[in-house]
């Protein structure tokens, strides 16, 4: 088996030293994309990483679920089926947890391989830079979606099992879920951009948390002042500045949910503007992200 092949004269000799070639099925690009997506999603929750990496996302998820569980328990024991739950305001009330989760987990997907240089190995594969960036983004998007959506599903299931009014709760739940999808997309886009550009975990976490909390604080402050002065337009423009007030405005105005900020869009035209800005942030952010990864591939 491992005999050297005798050549006709002086020159190279090929030895068969017993390595076996891969003879299994070749799964192709789609499968690579799927597994990259799945690993990214699991990694965002620390699964497949060290034990210490699981602590933060899991503890945050537990904190995120506790208020929902308590609300369901109160609802079931006291029979409060009407007007007790506001699905749409749940993400706004637990904003701090969501912000910490997004800020802490985006660098897991966007900083580490750029910083260590492993990115060039990924981009050398058939998947390509654009697809890689978009798949990474989808992993983060779904991770945030699960993080914010699951507590709201818990609330909804709890409300239904407490025999709440099906039609009313389903409508509000659906409106809130569309809002959550939009919120997850906006947050994933912004935090991915910060994480990819800073490349340092600590700095990325800090900048994301500061930017999200300060922008929401500015919206609250400006809306308080402008509505006291009777300046409705100013307050509505201010609402465009933070992802939370932006998405809250969309689901309150266009989907019939309940707004959690002092000033909501008020008219359908403003609601559409809020939606357009949210979509523009996602599309523009993704464009910048893809461009950034393409530049990395060119290096």
């Amino acid at each position: 088996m491992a005999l050297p092949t005798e050549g006709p004269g002086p020159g190279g000799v090929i030895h068969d030293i017993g390595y076996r070639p891969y003879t299994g099925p070749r799964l192709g690009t789609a499968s690579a994309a799927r597994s990259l997506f799945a690993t990214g999603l699991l990694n965002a929750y620390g699964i497949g990483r060290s034990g210490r990496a699981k602590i933060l996302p899991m503890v945050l998820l537990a904190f995120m679920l506790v208020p929902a569980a308590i609300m369901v328990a109160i609802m079931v024991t006291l029979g409060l089926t009407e007007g007790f739950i506001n699905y749409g305001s749940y993400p706004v009330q637990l904003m701090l947890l969501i912000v910490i989760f997004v800020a802490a987990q985006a660098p897991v997907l966007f900083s580490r391989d750029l910083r260590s240089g492993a990115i060039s190995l990924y981009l050398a594969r058939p998947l390509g830079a654009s697809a890689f960036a978009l798949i990474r983004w989808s992993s983060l998007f779904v991770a945030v979606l699960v993080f914010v959506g699951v507590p709201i599903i818990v609330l909804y299931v709890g409300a239904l099992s407490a025999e709440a009014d099906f039609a009313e709760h389903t409508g509000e739940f659906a409106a809130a879920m569309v809002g959550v999808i939009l919120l997850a997309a906006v947050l994933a886009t912004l935090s991915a951009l910060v994480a990819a550009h800073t490349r340092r975990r600590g700095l990325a976490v800090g900048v994301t948390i500061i930017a999200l909390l300060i922008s929401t604080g500015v919206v609250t402050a400006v809306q308080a002042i402008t509505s006291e002065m009777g300046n409705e337009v100013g307050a509505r423009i201010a609402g465009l500045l933070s992802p939370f007030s932006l998405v809250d405005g969309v689901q309150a105005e266009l989907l019939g949910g309940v707004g959690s900020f002092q000033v909501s869009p008020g008219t359908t035209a403003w609601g559409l503007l809020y939606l357009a800005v949210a979509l523009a942030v996602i599309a523009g952010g993704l464009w910048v992200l893809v461009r950034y990864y393409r530049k990395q591939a060119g290096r």
Partner: protein
Amino acid sequence: MNATISRLALQSLFGQKRWWALLSLPLLLIGLALLVRLLTRGEAGGAFEVIVVGVGITAATLVALLATTGVLGPEIDDGSIIYLLAKPISRYSVVLSKLLVAVGVTVVLGAGSLLVSGLILEPSDLQQALAVTAGMAVAGAAYCSIFMVFSAVNRHAMVTGLIYVLVFEGLLASWLSGLRYLSVSAWGRRIAEGIDDSLNLAAGNLPLAYAWVASAVVVVAGCVLAGRRLSRFQLRGEE
């Protein structure tokens, strides 16, 4: 003290992408003050307290956090700190040189933006704006010292510092008024009140001397702790 270390720290602070985060916070505060002045047409009764104290102190604290984690953290992170520690320079002097840069940046960008936004909101009252600026400068020095210990102790100084600022200073100290004896922000506000009696910054009945002494103790203790930590520094690999 070592001028070269300070110069390098300043260079690294503004050589990284951190500088735009450092600059954007003061600019945002000043922009907010301008916006509020435009919206209220100069009749900003109470806006000074809301903007300068509510938003401004947090923004200046975050500047202190970004500056301090920027002068020491990255070097520990990528391991190049050993080249600095291998030099025959006292670790305390390394900490002090870096701390001085962080405090300088915090005073210029953090407290300075309070001065500018205070003057935008109440142009006639220079003393009030100066009092808040001085209080924030003292509090900023104490914060830098605390964050210096955070960056010397673990890799996650930014996250630890944010949790400290948001949870302890932001939530707990504003709910539980007894914590004013431990809250750096309350000391700074008390010092500002001590300079201008007309200010009421909700610092409670904290003794003025206590605020000064406590701030000084925190600055010194921070230097000593961070210096001790660096003199027992051990290299660790990636986790």
